[in-house]
């Protein structure tokens, strides 16, 4: 759907000709883009350069500022087509915000823009991963059955450390991709590391579910 080779988008408002921070709405006159919501990639929607490193505070400010311009509650759309456009634009914009603000989603997206495989097309993982996951899973089950919360906590920090290591690698690879170097090996390793994070996340969920519902924990 998105493509990095898309022709450049308008940077001036068609209505008032003022420069625009984002191609979807003009902060000067409030005009919304006439183009369909999916005409822009996630970075373009926010008017930021594609890359792995993003200033989250600035992104959030922009999210609020643009939401005020495009949200159907505030656009005061006069008719159904206008309302629909504002709704679809908001839906797309919210989705883009979720993509950009989470590092995993952002890396996935950069991989997609570089033409890499998605998680259904390539399910492979780094070599030693499955063995480690299986061992941990057994240990979690054991600790849960014996009600040993301190062991669960220890397994939790081990898992988080492994996830953090995978994230470090992902950050490095995503920066390489965003720098324009989309070698097949880079894409493939990034794919594997992103798949690995899914395993770590499901393990963390398992640990969280094994924890008794003690609100003070």
């Amino acid at each position, binding site marked *: 759907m998105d493509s990095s080779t898309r022709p450049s988008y308008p940077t001036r408002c068609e209505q008032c000709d003022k420069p625009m921070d984002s191609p979807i709405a003009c902060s000067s006159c409030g005009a919304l883009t006439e183009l369909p919501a999916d005409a822009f990639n996630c970075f373009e929607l926010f008017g930021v350069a594609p890359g792995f490193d993003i200033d989250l505070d600035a992104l959030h400010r922009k999210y609020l500022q643009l939401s005020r311009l495009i949200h159907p509650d505030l656009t005061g759309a006069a008719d159904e087509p206008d309302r629909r456009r504002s709704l679809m634009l908001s839906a797309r914009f*919210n989705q883009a915000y979720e993509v950009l603000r989470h590092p995993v989603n952002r890396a996935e997206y950069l991989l997609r823009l570089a033409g890499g495989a998605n998680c259904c097309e390539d399910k492979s993982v780094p070599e030693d991963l499955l063995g480690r996951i299986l061992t941990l899973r057994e240990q979690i089950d054991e600790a849960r059955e014996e009600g040993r919360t301190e062991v669960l906590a220890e397994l939790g920090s081990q898992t988080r450390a492994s996830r953090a290591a995978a994230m470090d690698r992902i950050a490095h690879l995503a920066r390489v991709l965003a720098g324009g170097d989309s070698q097949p090996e880079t894409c493939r390793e990034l794919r594997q590391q992103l798949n690995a994070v899914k395993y770590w996340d499901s393990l963390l969920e398992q640990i969280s579910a094994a924890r008794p519902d003690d*609100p003070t924990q």
Partner: protein
Amino acid sequence: MSALQDIVIGIDLGTTNSLVAVCDDTGPRVLRDEAGQGCLPSFLTFDPNGAVTVGEQAKQHAVENPLSSIFSIKRLMGRGFDELTASGELAHLPFRVVKRASEVGSTSAQQRDVAAVEINGRLLTPPEISALVLRALRERACQQLGGDIRKAVITVPAYFDDAQRQATRDAGRIAGLEVVRIINEPTAAALAYGLGVREQDDNARGSEAGADRPATTALPLAERGGAGELSGLTGERRAHESVVAVYDLGGGTFDVSILRISGGVYEVLSTHGNSCLGGDDFDRSIIGLVQNEIETQFELSIESPATRQALRSLAEHVKMRLSSERQAALEIDLGHGRSYRRTLTRQLFESLIGPQVDTTLAACRRAVEDAGLTPEAIDRVILVGGSTRIPLVRRKVEDFFGRVPYTALNPEEVVALGAAVQAAVLAGRRRDTLLLDVIPLSLGIETLGGAMSKLILRNSRIPCQVTERFSTFVDGQTNVKINVLQGERELVRDCRSLGEFELRGIPPMPAGMPKIAVSFLVDENGILNVSAVEERSGRQASIQIVPTHGLTTEEVQRMELEAYAHAREDMTAHRLIDLRNQVAFDTHKAERMLEQVGDALGESKRAEITAAIADLRALAEKTDDADALYDALNAFDRTTLKLAEMAITATLRQGNQARES
């Protein structure tokens, strides 16, 4: 006329109480009945000839007519008979709930399961019953605002799933209301609290302790650089921001939402809850205790619906007493000279409800985690819902978040006030406020092998949209069925099925050739909309939706027409009935007060009141003029004012003596 039609009211459709509010240039206000009550009890009684009474009168009549009274209908909204039976919910309800025979979808593989209430031989679905409550609120608004009101914002628990939201919207339609928006109750509450920001900003800044603020002050939620640790996604403190937790424990539902508020934008970061936990369940724990004790002491089981209903209202009363007192006495006449008596201490009550309150804190913990925060990062905690008057709840919430919760606004009214504010925004009257809410539960589809494949994750901002591609399995196949699910578990059987979406009109092609792009759009109401296009031919595939636990569009339309036919009964007649009931109630009360404290009045005053009682009763019987009766009732209340004051003083004196002794 057009100006009035543009008015949008805000409605809090609650499990035990419902309210309606409106917001004008002076701010939001709750619309009250002639007795000054904002809360309309969500109680209904049906008399055999079909007339319906809603509200306080119905609640009082429920003990006498337990089988033709309905309450807590919100707990049934959007839920199926089978799941209600399985969860044990139906065992607590005195009225008869059945599985509704399906009007459509009989050819569907998907089994529909819609619950309905049988009342005087008539079957009514929960949306139809809720519509009667909504209609009563709408009438109140029409009377007070002087015209025809047709648009409303209705609140739902944040944790309501798609079927429950749809059911609420259906109820609005059946009541003849255009539901311009469904909003989440905790979000509405935050909106009500945040409203006074600009006006209150200067004098309220810097006052950290909220507990002793006057009850009418709005709170500075979007306080500039206020006290408390602020932690955004980057862990940094952000100026002009405040992070708020709304803990909303009502009659039958529990929600917790974490919001970040900055400059009029209310951003929900996460939400969690339980759409079947609330004050009703605390009543039930008292009922359970009493029933057990009666069974062991007297070898009696309480079977009669009237006794059960009496026990239910007694339990509610005891629960409320225990919020202000350390113990409450209860007594039940079991007939044949036997009576059950005991004193229930607050301590025992707390041990009964403790485990349930703890589950709400577990939900708080998960909500805080999902927001990427820690409890210390929350600047403000707001309590909403009648059940937050319970001291144990306050204490536990305070312990969990490590700060004194705010309770400056009436916890029963704050949701309706917030709904009215959002209604004003949507009517274009306010431009300063924007709600950015989330979807509470993940949405997905059934894939091969009975697995749930998530398409939209919980706590995603709404509106949001995901497109998924499908194809065919057989040559020339022209339709595809998709089972849409909501929930967090991995297997289909552990999630709720929202319904079966059947795509039709796919051009015949070899198997696997069609590329059908199905768009799942969760709109600003948190409600799912599905559309589909076959991408090779560009043809729009039509979609027929058979909701698993809800009503089809045709069913809602038919019910709306039926309800409209019923609604043509004269509104004045309705008001007259209410006024006559009020006359009966007020005159009876005056007689009792005369007996108790009348001696202290002069002979002539006593005679005047006795005559006034007779006159008012006579008028109520013969007049059809509601306005005249209303004026007479007010005059009567003025006549008996002195008497009422004396009765109150006497009661207080008794209370003091009891305390001293």
